């Protein structure tokens, strides 16, 4: 080709390419350019985000990030993970250090409205509880007057605990340590009487770190609502839609009975709902500036919501509880994909 033709071809491409991704927002563009999504996760919480013995991150929060990568790139492996403590997590997201915060973060008013961040949905409904050693013979949280309670700083846990004890006219002594390893050490060596965090965290910690799990009892009182969900920055509606509909696709897939194992044969299913889901009909991918097979990729490479839960949380002894689907007795509900 002559120089003029190549220059013309380049000029045309320069016009066309930006137009093709004109709908995508700054975060998606940045991720596409980098070639991966930077995902903020917990430093190590069994079931949610924890590196395994090979250094691979595993957990339902990790699965959500992988699902977003599957939707955006078609490859669930295009992720880098940044472990964040409770104190660092919001600043990391606000400053742009991570693209998504998927770190068992409770959706609260102050965080949604006051930090310049958006919660895109709930991937786990939880509540706060207390764990004590069985030796103490404590049957209820109302017997904890005067106890020393281990907690991590900068969490809703600290605030809920203070509110609960105030409301019940009890006193307590907080032992506030930032690193999870250290605060658990303080509880297991007896420095504190009680350890408090979300019930899912208590179950995970007891299963993973107690020398004898039956020595520790989780008290029946659940003192707060803790809906966990992924968080993104204000000002990027496209990214918000992408992450939100990734979560909904995983829930919808479970509702439609699509799993990572049967999605390939189900793709041939003539049911129009399934056809729309796998991208055989309709242009849903284009609306999100991603491939039409975005939902198929999510289910094939990561799995549906139930598979993710069963893979990571069920082995710890966590029951699905209210995290079941809406038509199976729980409250997991996805708007229709149409």
């Amino acid at each position, binding site marked *: 080709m002559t120089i003029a033709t190549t220059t013309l071809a380049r000029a045309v491409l320069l016009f066309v390419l930006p137009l093709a991704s004109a709908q995508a927002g700054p975060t998606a563009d940045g991720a596409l350019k980098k070639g991966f999504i930077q995902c903020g996760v917990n430093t190590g919480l069994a079931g949610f985000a924890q590196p395994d013995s090979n250094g691979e991150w595993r957990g339902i929060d990790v699965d959500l990030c992988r699902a977003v990568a599957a939707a955006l790139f078609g490859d669930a492996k295009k992720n880098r993970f940044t472990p964040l403590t*409770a*104190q660092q997590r*919001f*600043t990391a997201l*606000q400053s742009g250090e991570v693209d998504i915060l998927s770190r068992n973060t409770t959706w609260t008013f*102050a*965080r949604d409205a*006051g*930090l*310049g961040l958006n919660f895109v949905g709930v991937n786990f409904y939880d509540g706060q509880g207390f764990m004590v050693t069985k030796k*103490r013979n404590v049957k209820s949280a109302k017997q*904890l*007057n*005067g*106890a*020393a309670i281990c907690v991590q*700083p*900068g*969490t809703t846990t*600290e*605030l809920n*605990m*203070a*509110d609960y*004890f*105030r409301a019940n006219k009890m006193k*307590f*002594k*907080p*032992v*506030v*340590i*930032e*690193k999870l390893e*250290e*605060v658990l*050490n*303080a509880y297991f*060596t*007896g*420095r504190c*009487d009680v350890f408090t965090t979300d019930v899912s965290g208590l179950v995970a910690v007891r299963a993973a770190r107690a020398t004898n799990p039956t020595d520790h009892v989780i008290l029946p009182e659940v003192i707060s609502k803790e809906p966990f969900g992924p968080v993104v*920055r*204000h*000002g990027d509606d496209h990214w918000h839609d992408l992450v939100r509909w990734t979560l909904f696709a995983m829930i919808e897939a479970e509702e439609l009975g699509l799993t990572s194992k049967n999605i390939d044969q189900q793709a041939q299913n003539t049911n129009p709902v399934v056809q729309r889901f796998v991208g055989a009909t309709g242009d849903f991918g284009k609306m999100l500036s991603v491939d039409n097979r975005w939902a198929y990729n999510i289910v094939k490479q990561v799995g549906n919501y139930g598979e993710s839960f069963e893979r990571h949380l069920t082995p710890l002894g966590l029951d699905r509880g209210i995290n079941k689907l809406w038509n199976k007795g729980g409250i997991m509900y996805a708007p229709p994909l149409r």
Partner: protein
Amino acid sequence: MARQLDTRQRAALYQILLVAAICLVGWYFIRNAVDNLLARRIASGFNFLFREAGFEIGESTLISFSAADSYLKALTVGLLNTFRVAFLAVVFSTFIGVAVGLARLSPNWLLAKLASGYVELLRNIPLVVQLFFWYAVITESLPAPAQALHPLPGFFLSNRGLAIPTIVTLLPLEVEYPSLSGFNFSGGVVLSPEFAALLLGLTLYTAAFIGEIVRAGILAVDRGQYEAAQSQGLSQAQLMRLIILPQALRVVVPPVTSQYLNCTKNSSLAVAIGYPDLVSIANTTINQTGQAIEGIAVIMLVYLTISLAISAAMNVYNQRIALRGART
């Protein structure tokens, strides 16, 4: 026709240009931060200080605190806690440092070697590791409250801390004794293991450095002073106390000032072992309100003020002990 500026005018011009450049850079950073905060609708301003804190603090010095108090009061509690541990660490590490410095110069071989070992070990291990060590030792070696050690009447030592009886009123003498009720000791004052570990770690660490500075100061005193003192018939103790140490002081005071500042700033490692100092509470505040810039500004301002105050005080002392007529 070149305009000639003399040296002084040129110097003035450069200084003006430099100040202008710094102001410009500063203005750019502030403008950038404010614009970004506004764009992302992140709250700014110091009004959050008057909102209810909502969290409890494990221990506080002198003033009492509850979750219904403001963030400002919480930060004040943090500040007082920092003062308490930093002040005590500075005082104790000075005494121990002088002892270690003298020990290292002692003619007694064992004493000198022990002191050297102490200095080498503690200077080379990171402070946060030492703090974890002391915290683990204290919490794991002490018994639970139900089996607390009872060395003196009214004193209880357990892994929750040292419970001490307090004097409620002086006349008539009324003492409040700590007693075990339910989970912990109530009544009296409790010295928490976090405070003890932090104080111990900071003191021993800083004392190692001060020991070396004291040794340097003593070695800096002229040999002639020793001989002159011995010819006057002064004993070893009098020699040290009246002749050597006062002269060593001139060499010792400036570096020891640095060590005091380091000690104060190192107390911010409290967050690793759960002692509620200023940085720990400010971090919690930042996380709850999302206002990172204001929170960090408060921390920086407080530490800057403390450091400048310590430096100023030490400089005054330095001036007073300086040799009259020598270089100022």
